[in-house]
């Protein structure tokens, strides 16, 4: 379970998160929507402590993420993350990209790490690309590699930060299909996304962020199909037209 309790986050004088309370249970999919600068990506970075927070608490399976006494590297092993820029490691082949962290972080043998990596690469449809360098692949393929690389750590949670925003429109579908697959397998996910239709389809809950607060929260049938708050209606009318 991921819990955010009254999370405040500032960059200098700019307060980006102004008291976020949020709970995501095991097996749930939460989609986070909102305009740019609303703090939704920052919230994601605070969950695996890539960004620190000024006030409040983030708790993952009972462990306080921002506690200085915990080993964050161990906690991050169970929280996979995929970014807007796919961030492939360009000096490694597809297989090495996915096998690296199981090997050096989890201490698996090379053959074992490669076996796991191959399974996950197969899973996202990159079974024929093991020895290709990421620079020779399309954005969609690289993004699927990023997903497989995160999954190879066999995490319990996945965080997705606008993973289709930097893709050409015709490549968005293949990446969303991969997410649908994960959804079907019961992965707990938080997706920051601009794909409203996708959010409606896969989410258990949708959070609408506005200026660092959660303006509206609820099942997609409410937040997306029948929004109660005026700001949510305005945002949706803009992105859905």
């Amino acid at each position: 379970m991921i819990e955010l309790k009254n999370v405040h986050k500032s960059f200098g004088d700019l307060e980006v998160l102004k008291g976020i309370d949020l709970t995501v249970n095991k097996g749930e999919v939460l989609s986070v929507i909102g305009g740019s600068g609303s703090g939704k990506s920052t919230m994601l970075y605070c969950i695996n402590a890539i960004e620190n927070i000024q006030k409040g608490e983030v708790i993952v399976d009972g462990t306080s993420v921002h506690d200085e006494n915990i080993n964050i590297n161990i906690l991050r092993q169970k929280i996979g993350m995929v970014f807007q820029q796919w961030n492939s490691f360009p000096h490694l082949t597809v297989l090495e990209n996915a096998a690296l962290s199981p090997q050096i972080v989890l201490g698996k043998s090379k053959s074992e790490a490669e076996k796991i990596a191959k399974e996950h690469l197969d899973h996202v449809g990159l079974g024929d690309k093991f020895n290709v360098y990421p620079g020779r692949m399309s954005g969609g393929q690289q993004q699927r590699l990023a997903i497989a690389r995160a999954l190879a750590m066999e995490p319990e949670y996945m965080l997705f930060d606008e993973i289709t925003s930097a893709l050409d429109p015709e490549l968005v579908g293949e990446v969303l299909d991969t997410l649908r697959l994960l959804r079907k397998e019961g992965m707990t996910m938080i997706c920051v996304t601009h794909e409203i239709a996708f959010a409606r389809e896969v989410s258990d809950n949708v959070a609408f962020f506005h200026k660092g607060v959660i303006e509206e929260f609820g099942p997609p049938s409410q937040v997306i199909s029948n929004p109660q708050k005026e700001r949510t209606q305005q945002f949706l009318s803009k992105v859905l037209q």
Partner: protein
Amino acid sequence: MKNKQIKYLIYALIFIYAVYQTIVSVKASSLTYYDLEFLLEGLERTVYISVVSIAIGTFFGLIFGWMKVSMGTFGNIILSGFLDILRSVPLIIQLILFYAFMGILEIDISIFWVGAIILSAYTSAFVTEVVRAGIESVPLTTRRAARSLGMTYWQDYRYIVFPLGLRAVFPSWISIVLSVIKDSALVSVIGYLELLKTTEELIAKTNEALLLLLGIGLFYFIISYPISLYAAKLERKLKV
């Protein structure tokens, strides 16, 4: 490929002609076999002091470069000031000053180490900037991805930043290596018997200035050119 073969052919012809001319000229000159041996000893010392200085200089350059991107402003100002002095004051002046200070302070240190310390410090100042540029060439987002996979700070450096940074700045590092080999000639001013100094002594003895200078020019080329060839090959291999 065709152009390259022509290039190598021209190099080979020049080389063969130079060797031939050298042999002919040496035979006609007053140089003896022992003089050649003396010269080869100088060559050996040039290689030795260069290798030592490049190794030590690169080692400290790696540390200083890492410090430059990791330290706060205060430490950075001190380190940068120190390195700027090393980079801006001509090497020959640094050598003479350091040698003189060692004498004044009555520190017992061999000429080799006076030269090697200054050459190492000088090298480290340049390598520092190259290392800093290499680290900064790796996008922050890539490093975040590495950390999000559970890698520790040092694993991120070892497996992501170092190999990627190396690819970005390897050619610059090679330029430093080549210039250090040539700059090592300056150590002759404090009396270290490297290639240039041995040549000077032979010139004083035999008066064959032109021949000897051409000869050691060839020697420097023989040391440096394979390095740039090998570097170009390695660079192609590293390119992804």
